Structure formats: C-alpha cells, structure tokens
C-alpha cells in the first residue's frame, strides 16, 4: 500500500496525489520565500561579522531562528505540495533536519580547525598551518601511547563479555529471587562514571583507608597501590569501567538466552549431553548473533571511554591509563591547544570509522557463513 512513495525528493513526480494545483503553487512559493529569507538573514549576519555593514548582532542566533522557521515552512510546504506523501515525510523531517544541523556544521568546522594552529591562550587567533598538526601527531608519542591503551581497553571487552555471559547464565538458571538479583546486577549501569570515579577509584581503592586496599593487604599484598604502576593502574581503570558496563552486556545476553528455543536445549539434555557440552555445542553457537550485537555496541561505547580516567588518574602514571578521549581532553583543558587537539580527535574519528566498519563487515560475513 504505502510502498514506493518517494518522499522529500522534490524532483519526484507528484501528479497523482490529488493536491490542487493552487495549493501546490502556494507551497512552493512559501518554501522559496523561506529559503530566500533564511539565506538573506545569514548573508546579512555574515556581512555584519565581516564588518561590511554595521548592525552589530550580539550572536548568530537570528540565523538559528531563520533556520527554525525555514524548517517549519519546509515541513508545511511538503504537505501542501505533495499531500499524503508530504505528511509521511513529516515523520522523518524533524529528526533529519535536527541531525543535519547539529552534525554537519560541527564536523566541517572541526575539519577546518584541525588544520589551524589555534591556541586559545595565545593572543593571535587562528592561522591555517597545513599539515603541520598531522606531522606533529605522527611524532606525538603520548598520542600513540593512548591509542595503544585503547587497543588494550577494547580487547578487554572480551573479558567483560565472558563475565557478562556467566552472569546472564546464572540469571537464566532456575533460581529464587531472580528479580532481586537482576536489579542488583543492573544497578552499576545506572551510576555516573564521575560518581564511580570517587566511590570506587578514589575511596574504595584508596591506598590508606579504602576497603579494597585493606582487603588486598589481608590477602598478602603489602602495598596495595592501585594506581602507581602502569599495568595495575590500567587494570584498575578497566575494572571500574567494566563494573559499570558489564550489566549492559549481561542484559542483552540474558534477553538472548530467554529467546532461545527451549526444545533444543531440552533435547540435548535428553540425549545425555553434559551441561558443559550442551553449552558449547548448542547455547553458545545459538547465542552468537546476540553476542555480536552486544560486543559491537560495547566496543562503540568503549571507544568513548574518558570520564573515569579524567577523574581518577588524569591519564597517569606517565600516560599509562590514558584513553584517546582523556588525552585530548587534557590537550583542550590544560594546554588550550585547540587546533592540534581537534586534529587528534579527527584522526581518531577516521580510525574508529575504519575499525568499526571492518568490525561490522567481519561480523556480518561470519554470520552469513554460519546460517
């Protein structure tokens, strides 16, 4: 019924919609007027900013309002021009216009900044400096170190996955008080990483009085310093991040387990398979698609890891715990080195786009091979 109704595309044939030609013309005129109006506002503002006319706008807000009005008129115009197809387009338009407005501009502007020597603390303003930032990036040991740390953090997702799978199996077993355990296991996911930084990183794991340190002493570790040697610090940070995010993977896997066909598992049991065998031969393979979704999503979130590191170690000791995000954060905050920091961020974005694309390709090809 509603298939193949071209929306948004203004060039598409619109004859059979049953919209009166007058309405259609009015709609087109409205959109044209709004477009001209918006461009005019932006032009005047640009001239004002360049000093060509002296109106003295406080900010670019008028352009923002012009865009908002244009968006509303565009939506109304769609309905007037294309009738029902326009009404359908109206579902998608708000989200699309919003995303385009807030993503396109920052991305292009970010690309521009990335090739400048802009430093907020210098009085000079920004100059285009070509690929110098890129060269500096390739020579920046700390950046590559942060990227290597990201490899470690991302690899640890597999450990988180294993633990989460275990927990999901536990919750899926025939147990009492299942709801209590589920809520309890889920709670860490609700906590803000900043609060966790203090609750766990700065007090539980505190060297002198923290219960975790006390426990470690009882277990025979004489100087339980969680954040002084590089590897222990890295694992401590990872442990905190895992603590927050394991529930997320666990819930996804639990849903997968509950959706498994019960007959298959039951049949294996009847055939005399041990639980161990039936897990590896049946449950685990059946769970692979869900697992892939969970792991990919978790990796995407892991690539944004920053809050805990910023607040607990600030990347220390000696950059051992730095993630790319926390490193760039300090580049902005402490050195105000905006141009260079943005280049680092853009380069990271390119890397993760490549990485995630390859990951998705790999996952989907494996899935096809299986089925």
């Amino acid at each position, binding site marked *: 019924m509603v298939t193949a109704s071209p929306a948004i595309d203004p060039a598409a044939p619109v004859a059979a919609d049953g919209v009166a030609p007058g309405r259609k013309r009015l709609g087109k005129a409205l959109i044209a007027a709004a477009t001209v109006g918006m461009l005019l506002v932006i032009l005047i503002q640009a001239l004002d900013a360049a000093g060509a006319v002296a109106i003295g706008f406080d900010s670019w807000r008028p352009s923002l309002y012009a865009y908002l009005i244009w968006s509303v008129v565009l939506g109304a115009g769609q309905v007037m021009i294309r009738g029902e197809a326009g009404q359908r387009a109206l579902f*998608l338009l708000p989200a699309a216009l919003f995303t385009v407005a807030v*993503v396109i501009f920052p991305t292009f502007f970010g690309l521009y900044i990335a090739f400048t020597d802009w430093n907020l603390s210098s009085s000079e303003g920004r100059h285009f400096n070509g690929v110098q930032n890129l060269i500096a990036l390739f020579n920046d040991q700390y950046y590559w170190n942060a990227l290597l740390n990201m490899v470690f953090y991302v690899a640890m997702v597999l450990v988180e996955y294993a633990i989460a799978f275990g927990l999901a199996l536990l919750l899926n077993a025939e147990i009492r008080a299942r709801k209590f355990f589920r809520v309890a296991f889920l*709670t860490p996911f609700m906590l803000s990483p900043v609060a966790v930084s203090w609750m766990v990183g700065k007090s539980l794991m505190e060297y002198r009085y923290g219960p975790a340190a006390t426990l470690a002493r009882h277990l025979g570790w004489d100087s339980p310093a969680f954040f002084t040697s590089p590897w222990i610090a890295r694992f401590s940070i990872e442990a905190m991040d895992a603590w927050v995010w394991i529930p997320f993977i666990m819930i996804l896997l639990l849903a*997968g387990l509950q959706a498994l066909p019960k007959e298959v598992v039951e049949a294996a049991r009847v055939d005399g398979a041990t639980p161990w065998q039936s897990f590896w031969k049946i449950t685990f393979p059946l769970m692979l698609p869900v697992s892939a979704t969970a792991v990919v999503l978790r990796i995407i979130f892991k690539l944004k890891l920053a809050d805990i590191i910023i607040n607990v170690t600030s990347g220390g000791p000696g950059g051992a715990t730095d993630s790319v995000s926390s490193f760039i954060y300090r580049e902005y905050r402490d050195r105000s080195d905006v141009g260079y920091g943005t280049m680092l961020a853009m380069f990271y974005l390119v890397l993760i786009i490549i990485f995630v694309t390859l990951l998705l390709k790999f996952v989907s090809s494996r899935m096809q091979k299986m089925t």
Partner: protein
Amino acid sequence: MSVATDTRPLAAEDAGQRTKRRLGRTLIYAALIFWAFVSLFPIYWTLSTSFKVARDVMQGHLLPWIDFPPNWLGWRSLGLSPDTISNTSTVRDEFLSRFTNSVIASFGAAGLAVLLGSLAAYGLSRFQYKFLWMKNKDISFFFLSQLILPPVVLALPFLVLYKELALLDTRIGLILLYTLTVLPIVIWVMRDQFDTIPIELDEAALVDGLSVWGVFLRIVLPIALPGMVAAFILSLILCWNEYFFAALLTSTNAKTLPVMVASQTGSQGISWWAMAALSASAIIPLVVIGVLLERYIIKGLTAGAGK
C-alpha cells in the same frame, strides 16, 4: 529418559545425582550472592561513608550502629542534614542549582530525543523514503552512525558554535547536544518497537478514514508507549551521567551535577564524608528510578538484540 538402562542401583544413582544437584545449586547461589555483593557494595560504602566521621573512615568501620555511630557530618556539609536543612547554606544552594540543571538538561534532552526519534522511527518502519540516493536503509544507517561519534570530535566545534550562537553555558545548549547523542539509541529502540506492531493495524485504521498522522497518534502510539518509556529512561540515564560535554561547555550557570562532583574530587582537602554525601545524592535519583522502572530499562536495552 523413562527407561533406566544404567546397571547401577537406582537409589545410589539418585543420591549421587541429588548431591551433585545440591552442589550445583549452592555454587550458583554463591556466585549470585558474590556478584550482588560486588555490584552493591560500592553503593553501600558510599552511603555509609556519608554518615561517618574521620575516625570511622580511618579505622575502616563498615557497619553503622554496630561499628560506628552514624553522624550527619557529611550531609551537614552539604546543608542537607536535619539540623541544617532550615538554615541558609551556600553549598546547598549550589548543589540544588546543579541538581536542577541536571534534571532539566536530562529530562529535556530525553523528551526531545524521544519525540524526534519516535517520529523518525515510525516513518522508517512504515514508509519507503527516498532522498537523493538514500533509501530507508541508508537513512537508518545515517542516524545510527551518529552513535560512533566520540564526544571529543564534537566538543570543540560545539564550543565555538555555541559561543557564536550565545548558547554556551546554557541549559538549552546542553539539551540540544544531549539530544544528538541519544537520538540514535532512541531511533534504534523505537524502530524495533514499531516493527513488532503489525502493519495491518495501520491499514485497517486507514481504511476507516484516519489520516496517516491520525493512525500514528490514535492507534500506534498508545501501543508503543511502553517502548517510548524504555527509550526515555535509557536516554535519561545517559544524559544524567554525561560529564564530558558538560565539563567543557558549561561554567557557572548550566553546570550539571557530574561536573560538580568531579570538581570536588579534584581538590585534595575535601573530606570523605562530604564527598560521599555528594556522590550519594548524585546517584540516588537514578538508582531509585532504576529500581522502580527496571523492567523498562531492560526492555529498552534488549530492543533489537534478538536480531
């Protein structure tokens, strides 16, 4: 199953099986209790520490009334203990203003994201769009791909953009940015929701003379409401806890709770009980929401997981 082919006496096998089963059960419960402890202890620790004084912290006391007498010290420093609640307190005023900012920013962003996201998700689930070369699949991918944008990439351009738009350090600026970050998740969850509602329902309503929007608002929306709640809660959690953007884009007016907590952690002189009280008050609202609406969070998280 019903035929015993084993040569061993049945009773012995039963006993063996039973001890094995009992052992298995014990192990399962031990593991469950262990992880529940791991999950809940830091929260308990924070709550209990907020009622301690210096001596209790140093001696590592854990159990209130048994180990140490609870003291309002931590909450007093926030101006939230029973004896200071009626007095004026600058710390409490600051805390309340941060708290309000957090509430407005996260509820506003979650609401806006659910509004925009549900509409888009419904459209993508029901109609065939074509924009330039992009079909439905590409448009969906465009929205979902925003999810991999790391905050660092957006942070600086937004700083400059907001400065030009006079949106820096405003709640509305935070709302717009947070909406952008959670919109992909909302679209994901809601598309899954709408896909499970049979399209025949829409068709029947259309035949009855409802318009496209009438079908959506009067027929589909009420059915999809639980899914919307789930998407809302999920967005709320992510926005409430967001730190990175808030730290860079807000300074005095629109600072949110995580930024306040973080700025306190940084200073060395701050006492544990005060920090514990502050952290506790930052997490309690969400823990309460989480416990009450756990069902919806799970529903939101598991949308699309079965595919």
